[in-house]
């Protein structure tokens, strides 16, 4: 197979998308991102237009803003469905700021395949378009809050597990306040659900123990209050976390975020339910957590202390090991303890079974009957006899037999792993608050989601121009390594002023009036008509002059990206 074929196979399938959206900014961004990813995008600004397009063309996905100038999104879809009952319909994705309002009506849940919250997350839209199963029979979006549960009176939306499980949960579980667990089966699937790591787990089964944040199996009057308190606490902590981490699929990030919202400690417990014999205060599967935990430890985000050393199977990593005393010769565990007999007169010494003849003890060497203990014979020691192969030994082998995969390992060869407990450190909390920016520009990859909208639009135009005329441009990414330190030492206002001043200087120093855009943790510039290599030569000098103009050392760092990084 040629390498090109592989590439083609690896690319997601190109999809036709209808975007029904009245905001030109949103139109531009979504169009830019989806086109870059190889999808075709048609834009309808009104409900009327949308219905016309839908009548004329077949789409894979329709991204439908709820609030349109003429008829609302729901009406558009209903009208379309009323007129096209037999045809294969596109997947409808609702874009709304009021998820709860939308989901409260069961009818809506049957119409839309997905609901995406506003403000729009570009990465989410892109992945949704690519991953939606458009060929499958449409599933019904779960209707939340309608099943009966003990907390119906509380003003919260609950995800009920596993009844609400399925492939069409709202991405990131937005709009959901807590998870009610009715069954402990498949909890690792729940953990894999994006956003599930940030919600309180309320246990209705009474079996989750420390893995749940609230055991609601035996309800008491004060539980409502306690539940509300926990949900609010999670919500407060959730708000502190940077969107990078909230959206991250890295297991280490997800655990760190979970630890932060649930109280900041990682607590292992010994228990037989999981094959690792360790259960954490997480609903995640215990397998493979060590990697993520040691990553957090090495980054300094988690301060750990030793909890337990666990032997595990070298083949399947299970810690459910049967400890066996085994025969050296045949490996059987069918052993029996016996005493040695020493016949003084002829110096024969062997296990008692050598001597045993019915009720008598007869020396196998000289055939004398041993009559008197201490005078004819004694028992100088113990031996272990294998009932399978009759081998004798003083000390049997100790080996472990894996209960899960039956692999046999000598005790001293069984690998071990150390289980630790942990507390989220100040560094860990700083990382949770600042997201990827915490690492500085060096680890940064280009992410549209971080960029201010006006920059994305300008970037789109620059990219189009590059495609037509090869006019070069450079996108600059500015990270401030010391901004957190300045903020905590001199206050937020001083830090913001310094950053603003630095940025103004940059604007003046770069020629041709670059576009300067302010982000939350980073700032950006877009310089057109210049090569990346040429600009990079000047940037050091520019940075020094900007640094000299402000009081504080912001620790500013540039990362630059050329057209090839953005359009490629």
């Amino acid at each position: 197979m040629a390498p090109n074929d592989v590439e083609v196979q690896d690319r997601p399938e190109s999809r036709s998308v209808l975007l029904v959206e009245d905001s030109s900014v949103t139109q531009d961004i979504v169009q830019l991102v989806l086109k870059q990813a190889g999808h075709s995008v048609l834009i309808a600004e009104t409900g009327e237009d949308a219905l016309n397009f839908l009548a004329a063309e077949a789409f894979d996905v329709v991204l439908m803003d709820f609030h349109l100038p003429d008829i609302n999104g729901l009406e558009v879809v209903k009208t379309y469905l009323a007129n096209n009952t037999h045809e294969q319909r596109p997947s409808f994705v609702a874009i709304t700021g009021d998820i709860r309002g939308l989901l409260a009506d069961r009818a809506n849940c049957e119409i839309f395949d997905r609901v995406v919250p506003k403000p729009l997350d570009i990465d989410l839209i892109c992945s949704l378009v690519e991953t939606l199963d458009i060929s499958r029979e449409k599933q019904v979006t779960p209707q939340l809050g309608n099943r009966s549960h003990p907390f119906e009176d509380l003003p919260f939306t609950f995800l009920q597990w596993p009844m609400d499980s399925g492939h069409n949960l709202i991405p990131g579980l937005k709009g959901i306040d807590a998870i009610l667990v009715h069954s402990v089966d498949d909890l690792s699937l729940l953990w894999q659900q994006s956003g599930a790591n940030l919600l309180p787990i309320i246990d209705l089964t009474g079996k989750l123990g420390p893995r749940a944040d609230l055991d609601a199996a035996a309800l008491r009057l004060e539980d409502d209050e306690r539940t509300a308190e926990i949900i609010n606490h999670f919500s407060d902590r959730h708000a502190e976390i940077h969107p990078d981490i909230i959206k991250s699929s890295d297991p280490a990030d997800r655990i760190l975020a979970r630890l932060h919202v649930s109280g900041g400690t990682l607590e292992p417990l010994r228990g037989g339910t999981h094959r690792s014999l360790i259960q954490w205060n997480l609903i995640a599967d215990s397998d493979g957590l060590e990697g993520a935990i040691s990553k957090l430890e090495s980054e300094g985000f988690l301060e750990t202390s030793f909890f337990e050393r666990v032997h595990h199977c070298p083949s399947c990593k299970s810690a459910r090991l049967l400890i066996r005393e085994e025969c050296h010769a045949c490996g059987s565990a069918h052993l029996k303890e016996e005493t040695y007999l020493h016949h003084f007169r002829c110096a024969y010494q062997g296990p008692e079974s050598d001597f045993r003849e019915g009720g008598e003890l007869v020396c196998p060497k000289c055939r004398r009957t041993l009559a008197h203990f201490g005078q004819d014979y004694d028992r100088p020691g113990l031996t272990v006899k294998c009932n399978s192969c009759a081998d004798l030994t003083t000390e049997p082998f100790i080996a472990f037999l894996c209960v899960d995969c039956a692999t046999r390992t000598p005790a001293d060869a069984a690998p071990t792993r150390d289980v630790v407990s942990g507390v989220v450190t100040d560094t860990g909390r700083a990382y949770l608050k600042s997201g990827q920016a915490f690492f500085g520009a060096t680890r940064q990859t280009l992410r549209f989601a971080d960029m201010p909208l006006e920059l994305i639009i300008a970037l789109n135009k620059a990219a189009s121009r590059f495609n037509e005329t090869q006019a070069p441009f450079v996108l600059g990414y500015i990270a401030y390594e010391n901004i957190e330190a300045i903020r905590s030492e001199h206050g937020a206002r001083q830090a913001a002023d310094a950053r603003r001043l630095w940025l103004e200087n940059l604007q003046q120093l770069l020629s041709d009036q670059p576009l300067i855009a302010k982000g939350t943790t980073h700032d950006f510039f877009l310089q057109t008509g210049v090569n990346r290599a040429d600009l990079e030569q000047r940037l050091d000098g520019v940075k020094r002059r900007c640094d000299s103009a402000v009081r504080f050392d912001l620790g500013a760092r540039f990362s630059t990206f050329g057209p090839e990084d953005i359009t490629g």
Partner: protein
Amino acid sequence: MSGVSEALDYLFAQSFASFLALFWFVFIFEIPRYLLLFVVTAVLPKHREIEETYRGRVSVVIAGHSEEESIEKCIFALREQSRPPDELVVVSDGSSDRMAAKISSLLRKSLIDAAHSTQLRSGKSAGTNMAARLCTGNIIINVDCDCSFDRHAIRNILRPFADRDVAAVCGAILPRNTHRSLIAAFQGIEYMISISLGKQSADRIGQVTCVSGAFGAFRRDAYEAAGGLDAGGGEDLDLTLRLRRSGWRIRFAADAQCYTDVPETRAALVAQRFRWERDAVRLRYRKHVDMMNPFSRRFRWAELAHEAEFMFFNVLGAAVLPFYIFWLISTYGSFAFIVLLAAQLGLLALDLTVFLLAASVTPKANAFRLFPYLVGYSVFNSVYMRFIRLTAYVQEWIFRSSYSDSYVPNKVHKVRG
């Protein structure tokens, strides 16, 4: 000085007959012994060994009491062999040190194949018998914990088993610690002459009578048919005698080299030799006395020959020596010392000859380094050791001391009388 020169004049003036009358002890008990050694070794041809490596299964059994320090070195030396044993079985016989834990750890590291420990001491015989019972080889090699071996020792000790009539082969043992004391250096020469040269000559005439417990190999069926080692001391001599009695051939492998530590102090040497000599007397003249009785069913000329040789040179030689000295002094007064000195000088010349012969047939012994001790050895061997032997024989004949030897546990002594 004048006394000495007078005495020498007197000696040189003697006729052969009167010379013989003066030095009869030397002519009866010393010269034939040396001559026998010399003639047999120099004249009779060596056995031609088959070069082929032994193909059967070979087990090494080691029974030790509180040998924590030495067991590991011994095992490593055995694992270094050009023909490694197929099985290593170690018994810790009621050790009071950490030998049991040590052999368990060797087992866990797969350096040995079986480790057995008893909490009560049963003695070397019972321990070795148990190890032999638990091992699986066709050849059982019995070694002491404090022994180490040249790389080809096992290969070479197995060669004589190509002859199906051979039941046991004795390995060549040399002291390792000859540099540690004068007593040890003397034993270095003694082992060269009596064990290396002596057993080589005995091997030529089929008269190897003791397969040492420090390094000896046994054909399993012969070992089992003989009932293994018997209770009580001198078990190695006893088993060899019983195997000989059953018609088996016993061999000595001069190139199967093993090293051991010999006693470094006079007291330790005396204790060891007391034990050996007492056991020899007990076994030869009590337990197996019927082998010398022409009317016994078990009588054999070959056994009578070596028993007579032992009786004459070892027992009588030691017993007569005090009488000879007494006779000299009573007859010649102070002149007796000159006679003894002259006799000793004569013995030294014989010792030198035998030493050179022993050195030539024992290349592994560091003869050059031991040479300066030869003068001292001559006195040590002909006078000192004879008195030790004599004391041991008297102890055994009168007090039956071997029956209370601490080498054998008391519980065994009680039964065996």
